[in-house]
């Protein structure tokens, strides 16, 4: 093949691939929004109506239980995970850790980052078995928090590393302690950190595999931290497998709610990250 023909061929292939990916994304979002939107908008109250006693069988009532479950599980999980992730990320900076130590920890974080979410679910399950408890909202929180931890740590670590060195130098120069300096660096890297936490939050909201075995797949309203609960993704999973057409159509309504929330979070996170890249000297360019 002539080298200019090859050049044109692969240029076209590259364009076609990108177009294909974009087309698939448009298809997925459009199907979810149109199909789900129709169901949801004809009866928006299903998102704030508690499930009836035979909800999973006949679709009476709505899926408020899953909406609340998502809020009560992912909200606290994000807070816990954020505190841990920010602390870890601070400790990985050069003021606290040797390069070698942060390399080792980063290796473990990478492994955790790549660990399938279902493994976190199974792990929390082993803990539940070991202490003789039962699946509940609380263990859902634990599982989601563990799942979010490596994601948030990585984003925070990256944000802290690209904060300008001058902030550190200036703060140390005023006689600040390590901790006081760390707080100041956090401030400097705040937009990036918030973007990363929102990202972790969004991933937590969308994940089903971690909660599947830990929160209890309840079909009732959440009754307390140690009572079974469910989340939107788990509910959608269960609804989609239902034999009842009414229940299956609810799955699309629930997806509509879920995709709107997740897309909203991503947009906010991207806007923050973009701002952040622009204001940080030597920061990431896009």
């Amino acid at each position, binding site marked *: 093949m002539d080298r200019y023909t090859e050049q044109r061929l692969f240029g076209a292939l590259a364009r076609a691939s990108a177009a294909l990916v974009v087309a698939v994304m448009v*298809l997925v979002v459009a199907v979810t929004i149109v199909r789900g939107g129709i169901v949801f908008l004809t009866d928006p109250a299903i998102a704030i109506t508690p499930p009836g006693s035979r909800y999973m069988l006949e679709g009476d009532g709505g899926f408020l239980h899953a909406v609340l479950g998502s809020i009560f599980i992912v909200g606290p999980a994000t807070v816990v995970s954020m505190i841990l992730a920010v602390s870890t990320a601070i400790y990985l900076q050069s003021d606290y850790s040797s390069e070698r130590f942060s390399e080792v920890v980063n290796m473990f974080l990478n492994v955790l980052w790549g660990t399938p979410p279902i493994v976190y679910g199974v792990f929390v399950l082993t803990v539940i078995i070991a202490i003789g408890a039962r699946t509940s909202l609380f263990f859902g929180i634990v599982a989601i928090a563990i799942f979010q931890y490596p994601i948030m740590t990585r984003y925070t670590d990256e944000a802290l590393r690209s904060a300008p060195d001058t902030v550190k130098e200036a703060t140390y120069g005023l006689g600040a302690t390590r901790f006081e300096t*760390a707080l100041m660096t956090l401030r400097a890297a705040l937009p990036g950190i918030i973007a990363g936490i929102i990202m972790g939050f969004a991933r937590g909201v969308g994940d089903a595999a971690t909660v599947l075995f830990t929160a209890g797949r309840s079909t009732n309203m959440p009754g307390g931290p140690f009572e079974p609960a469910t989340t939107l993704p788990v509910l959608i999973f269960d609804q989609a497998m239902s034999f009842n057409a009414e229940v299956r159509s609810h799955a699309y309504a629930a997806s509509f709610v879920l995709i709107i929330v997740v897309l909203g979070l991503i947009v906010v996170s991207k806007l923050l990250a973009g701002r952040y890249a622009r204001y940080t000297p030597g920061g990431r360019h896009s």
Partner: protein
Amino acid sequence: MGESMESQESNARGGRLGRRLRIERLSSYWLGGAGYFAIGLFVLIVMSLVYQSLPLLSEYSVVQMLTSSNWDPAQNEFGFMPAIVGTIYVTALSMLMGTPIAILAAIYLAEYAEGRLKTLVSSFIDVLAAIPSVIFGLVALIVVVPFVGNYLAPAVGSSATGLGIFTVSLVMAIVVTPFMISLSVESLEALPDELRETSLGVGATKWETIKLVLLRAAGPGIFSAILLGFGRVFGATIVPAMLIGGQTHVPSSPFATGQTLPTLIVNDFGELMSLPLTQSALIFVGLMLVVVVWLFNFAAMLVRRRLQRRWQY
């Protein structure tokens, strides 16, 4: 450092400085704890999974379980072969479909796209990466499943409901492609412009520059991207559980139904968890997932180092 801090602290005890130093000391304990958390968590996960897999491992030999294709927990038959074959099938097929598209799309974004179009396309890809996998599964149920069942499978002379290995692989390829794209774009864009100038400067075409120089120079990064994609397909739970058809037999064709390791856990969780050995078997599946992902991460690190040395610029 700790020692000098302490003596300073005793000098200034009770004063404002004393308080600050106390905060410094206490915070460093907390932060240090958090610093070891990742390691601790990993060790705890592995230990806990191993411990609860022991009941199974003490009864049956690992080799026998891994090679047996008879899975019937109610009868205490624990053959993992069907699920292992299913997982390998799905992983290989998705990577085969997803990787070339991902690399080409990354090349388009990093080397061809410009200006607003580039921003637009890359934000589309970011959005695709953020969509929860349960939504992919749901959309696939009304788009991919009928397509495969009514057109594709009959076209290749196979009769199927549309649920099965191929459907899962196709959807998983869609799920992982955006991840591979954004990581590959990152590593292509990190390359210095001199590499492009040098290659073009001796009369290489743009494609030759990409093929012979840029893909090598960005090779370690692209390799990591592919590996990340691999890990995600390998451990995917929700999409396979929704689309694979959940039948525990060694799949005979790409359009057959089957089982993957994660769907094994999903399908048999609940009804059979009350049996101690089944419980142990499902936890052992989790352990296998961790071990494989961990091994791959480690191998990837070695390969990446080699590539970095071989293809440095």
